[in-house]
């Protein structure tokens, strides 16, 4: 990885975050609702409204408001929630921590299941096991999170009563119960990713197994195990890094839905509450933090890819 590539990639992520901040602010800025009216209620006197508008800087031109907002964000000040009156930043970052916990566990579960499934499918190509994995993955990618979450709650929490349906217990407080509460959300957000990534691993590996260098390795008399793990898998897994990073987008979307259903107080739930109550500073902060998380995940994946694949030197 050349320093030039690293610099270029850093500049890109700066530009990405700038565009995202512009979009998030732009969309929320042209919201029909007036922030002052929302703060004081419908019955506020015109004089009180004007005073609040003046205080919040709502009479300033849009670019000046954007500048005030952005410079605040850069200094870690995301504004004050119009719903709770609390500063938005700390609330959102506490929530982000819980969401990241959910997301990381989901990625872990996904990889530990999707890789063996994909490899198994590719090695047994055309056999019953391969067909089984393919069919299951078609069903997996076609069930939206809110449906799988609801069905899982119905069976595992309502009927069998194995797991709690909703709620959240911090892992630091009670590890066992915390995990119990995380099982269903993690499984729910992982289903689509497991289905998608196992399919990708399978098709990559099928392609690699048909290349000349694999044939050469086989003809050389290497044991099938060595050919698979030392020659084929290394090349098949490289593109998977990018796909996993791109799937973080689905994952974050899934996190929004799953947190809402399982009453898990993470970033997604904060966002939904903020949207329902039209709490502008919270919507802006939540959306910005979520998009930045995704952009940074992709940045890390790109670096990992460039580091692992010596052929990439864009620089």
């Amino acid at each position: 990885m050349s320093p030039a590539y690293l610099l270029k990639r850093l500049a890109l992520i700066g530009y990405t975050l700038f565009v995202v901040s512009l979009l998030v602010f732009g969309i929320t800025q042209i919201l029909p609702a007036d922030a002052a009216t929302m703060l004081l209620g419908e019955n506020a006197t015109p004089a009180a409204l004007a005073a609040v508008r003046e205080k919040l800087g709502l009479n300033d031109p849009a670019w000046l408001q954007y500048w005030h907002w952005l410079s605040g964000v850069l200094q870690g000040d995301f504004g004050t929630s119009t719903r709770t009156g609390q500063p938005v930043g700390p609330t959102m970052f506490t929530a982000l921590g819980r969401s990241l916990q959910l997301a990381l566990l989901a990625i872990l579960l996904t990889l530990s299941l999707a890789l063996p499934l994909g490899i198994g499918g590719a090695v047994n190509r055309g056999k019953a096991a391969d067909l089984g994995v393919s069919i299951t993955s078609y069903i997996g990618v076609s069930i939206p999170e809110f449906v799988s979450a609801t069905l899982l709650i119905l069976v595992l929490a309502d009927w069998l009563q194995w797991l709690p349906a909703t709620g959240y217990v911090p892992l630091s407080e009670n590890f066992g119960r915390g995990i119990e509460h995380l099982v269903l959300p993690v499984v729910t957000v992982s289903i689509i990713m497991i289905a998608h990534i196992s399919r990708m691993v399978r098709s990559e590996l099928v392609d690699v197994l048909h290349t000349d260098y694999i044939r050469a390795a086989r003809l050389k008399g290497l044991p099938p195990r060595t050919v698979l793990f030392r020659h084929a898998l290394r090349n098949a897994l490289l593109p998977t890094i990018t796909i996993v990073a791109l799937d973080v987008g689905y994952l974050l979307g899934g996190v929004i839905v799953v947190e809402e259903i399982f009453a898990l107080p993470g970033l997604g739930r904060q966002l939904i509450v903020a949207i329902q109550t039209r709490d502008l500073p919270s919507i802006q902060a939540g959306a910005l933090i979520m998009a930045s998380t995704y952009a940074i995940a992709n940045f890390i994946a790109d670096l990992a890819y460039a580091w692992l694949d010596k052929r990439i030197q864009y620089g």
Partner: protein
Amino acid sequence: MGELFARMRRSPQGLLGMILVATMLVIAITGPWIAPYDPETFAPLLRYKPPTFEHWMGTDQYGRDILSRLLVGARSTVLMAMLASALGTLAGALIGTTSAYLGGRADEAIMRTIDAVMSIPSLLMALLIVTLLGKSSVNALFAIGIAFTPGMARVTRSVALAVRKQDYVSAAIARGESARYIVWREMLPNVVAPIIVEMTIRVAFAVMLFATLSFLGLGAQPPKPEWGLMVSESRKYMGQSPWMILWPSLSIATVAIGFNLLGDGLRDALNPRT
């Protein structure tokens, strides 16, 4: 076209996908006429009925016939999702082709901006746009269309660039064909095919996104028989009457599977190498 159809029919994915999607389209178009009951009329004496001969899928918390609600609701779920995907594809194709055509710095600037916009996850983007426009089915349609645009722009651009570099385009240029002939006869057919495949697979995603928005209370509003909304409304009663939630869930999954299979079948049929 006939040859494509024949090739589609030969692959199990293509065949199953065609059957599922065709059935869904027929239901979406004829649903309101073949529904045995009115989807929005309350029947207080018939609440929470399990599947019977009169009500094949049972009734919901207001005594409404679930089968009728699904049949009528197919329109607001499936057709809306298709329209949203078409909207996103059209806008994306326009941006992607323009970017590929301009090339150079302009192309670079457009694509970097598209990449930046894509770092907002589709669901979040759709949520933000619905917040801006207000919650309703039509606004959810626009939200999904806009959320799909950057992805489709990217696909279109990369396909257009790849096709431009193909030997058969160089050959046509060397033969001295007109620009019009090259664009229409050589490039366009090869650009359109992958875009249609991508769009078909996206319809599956749009169905799920649309239902998710309604589920979150930001898409279709009650008492509309939209499938995502039906799942959301019946969650309260799923303990005592699970079929209420089962049928709309199954319908959403079936449509999504149908479009996924159709997309994959189309891709295989359009790609002569495999």
